[in-house]
């Protein structure tokens, strides 16, 4: 029993339980969602949110916070819907440049010892500005192959579920199981010790920010694949969704404690929360607040768990 309920196990278990509870409530309210088609519809938008949450998780892992993620994903969505559609080569170059820019941002934050909140908040205006320049009015179109991928209808299991599992597992193996991943996470837990062991913290930061950039780009592409067009503000709310998803999934703001599987589950939970509230016939204006309430509820549960653990 003691062995089974380690802090780690509890951290992973809680997001799973909250997702199960939410799904149960949705199935109860609207039994028709309990089908291939229903799940597909419910979870469609979860894929870009899951990718964004993973991106944010990389940043959280090195004790930083990215307030520009939503703007960045909007930008990559705009690039995907315009350049990548019209001139694929230029589009790919631009998206690679976006990832590189994220790496540079990480280097800047590390070298100048700047608070990431300030740097990313500033950069969010830059991303939005470029996005507006690229796509002044909503429009563009999704490249066919992305559209095809995002609307795949595999047999038995809906695509969003497969995609979420693949994302979670790939990142889990890369970050939680690999030898390099241990160093990357260690840099969040005790940067001094990692540096003393001879690792370059600069490289760690640049790696983590570049990975965040990569997943931000993937999120933008996935989003365009679903919506078939973009606009400069399309993903602004992803900034807060990704932070909330990461924390909901068992991550913590400091100390390098993150969980990729939890983050994906957290993202899906938040995406489903919207549908759940619609099924309740709740006014959409209330939905953001209600999502916040769900977040507080889960975090309160987590506190209770750790309090009990301390007592035992």
């Amino acid at each position: 029993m003691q062995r089974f309920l380690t802090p780690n196990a509890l951290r992973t278990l809680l997001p799973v339980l909250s997702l199960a509870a939410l799904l149960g409530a949705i199935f109860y309210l609207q039994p028709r969602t309990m089908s291939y088609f229903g799940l597909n519809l419910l979870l469609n938008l979860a894929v870009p949110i899951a990718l964004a949450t993973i991106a944010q998780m990389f940043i959280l892992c090195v004790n930083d916070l990215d307030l520009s993620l939503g703007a960045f994903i909007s930008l990559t969505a705009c690039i995907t819907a315009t350049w990548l559609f019209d001139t694929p080569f230029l589009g790919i170059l631009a998206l690679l440049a976006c990832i590189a820019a994220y790496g540079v941002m990480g280097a800047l934050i590390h070298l100048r010892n700047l608070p990431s909140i300030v740097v990313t908040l500033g950069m969010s205006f830059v991303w939005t500005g470029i996005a507006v320049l690229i796509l002044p009015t909503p429009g563009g179109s999704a490249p066919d192959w992305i559209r095809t991928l995002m609307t795949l209808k595999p047999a038995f299991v809906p695509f969003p579920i497969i995609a979420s599992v693949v994302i979670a597992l790939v990142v889990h193996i890369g970050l939680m199981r690999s030898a390099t991943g241990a160093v990357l996470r260690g840099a969040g837990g005790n940067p001094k010790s990692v540096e003393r062991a001879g690792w370059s913290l600069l490289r760690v930061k640049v790696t983590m920010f570049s990975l965040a950039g990569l997943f931000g780009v993937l999120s933008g592409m996935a989003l365009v694949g679903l919506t078939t067009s973009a606009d400069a503000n399309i993903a602004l709310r992803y900034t807060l969704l990704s932070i909330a998803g990461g924390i909901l999934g068992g991550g913590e703001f400091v100390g390098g404690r993150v969980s990729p599987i939890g983050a994906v589950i957290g993202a899906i939970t938040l995406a489903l929360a919207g549908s759940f509230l619609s099924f309740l016939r709740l006014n959409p204006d209330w939905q953001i607040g209600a999502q916040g309430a769900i977040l507080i509820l889960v975090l309160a549960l987590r506190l209770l768990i750790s309090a009990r653990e301390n007592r035992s």
Partner: protein
Amino acid sequence: MRDKALVSMSGVEKSFGAARALTGVDLEVARGACVGLVGHNGAGKSTLMNVLSGVIKADAGHVSIGGEPLDASYDTARAASLGVRTVFQELSLCPNLTVAENLRISHPSIKGFGWRKSARNVIADQLDQMFPGHGISADAEVGSLSIAQRQIVEIARAFSKVESSIELVILDEPTSSLDQNTAAQLVAFVRSFVADGGSVILISHLLGEILEASDQIVVMKDGRTVAVDAASNFDRDRLVRDMGDVLTETSKFGGRASTKQNAPAVISGGELTVYPGEIIGFAGLSGHGQTDTLVRIFEASQGARNTLSVSEPAVFVAGDRQTDGVFPLWSISQNIFVSSLERLTKGLAINFAQAEDEAQQWQKTLSIRTPDMKNNILSLSGGNQQKALFARALGAKAPIILMDDPMRGVDVGTKQDVYEILSQEAEKGRALVWYTTETDELKHCDRVYVFREGKIMAELSGDDLTEANILSNSFDKEDA
């Protein structure tokens, strides 16, 4: 054994701003020898070791390892490749990783498919070899371990053999959180390690341990070495004299008489009773419930309902200063007067002049080594930070002081001053509850509770309060 020195340092200097931490230090470490390094807090021991392990660069002087002179490009990675391993005074494990993953951090050669398994095996074997009966799982998250267990893991990690060579292990206060039994295991391992040709530099304030483990002893004072000699030529008195102290320790166990039990008890519950004016010791092997009990007393004083009843407010001197001691962004004086804000507040404003005044006085009383109390708390050496935490607790006027192994990394001279202050505070009617991993400190207590497996096994006072009784109650009767 090759007789050529493994490490030779000469004329090493280092300044931090105006403070001269090292003023021309010479140090030689032979192959197959353990060098004990002693000195006051802030004498420059840790700084010297940081230079040797490549964490900081010296301003002047020569260092060579294995006959190879080191240049300006020397850093921690180069140190590792030369076989220099360090256990730093401030615990340097990643709390969010498992024990095995932490081994990987310090050993880049552990990688590829199946790395987790090999890391797990290496660290588990090393732990078993060095500290039999340690009870630490290689898959445990370090953050969930006690401070003593973390220290054990860190030591075992430094001695772990993976591809890279291991020539010299620097142990900076390795036993500060360990109980006597574990510390003895470490000393035994160090002896067998140097017998096999390895070298060790051991820094400790526990002089008995230094005398037992070392072949040669170097005494540092004010940033330079003041005495170098074979360990057999030293004894306790000479060490203390060379460090610049006079050993006034004449007390013996049970020397303090316990006659203050007239007033009503301030702490009571179960087997535990504490009266005002008493100094109560908590003894036993580390991690057997002493800290938990202190925390429960503290919580009860804050109004939490548990099995204890505590009638007066309490303050807490943390032993794990990194986790629950210092406010890392604040100055030394802010760290001290944070506990006295209520007293120092006039209307809505803090009386900063008085606060700084009091901080100055504490600097004098506890000889906190710093040019300016307004410096950041982290500019102090470990032992001096601990002094600041003491000042914080003594400055608050709470009638109960709870101390969680507070003398970790504090030098002999200051310890004696603190003992004196503690007994003065007890005279004034404050109740002190003191958990310590050093049996000698229990001499300053009226009564001692010995803990084992979370329970109080014995209450000792007067003639019963002997080292033998403490030890025999610390261990299971079957083991002993």
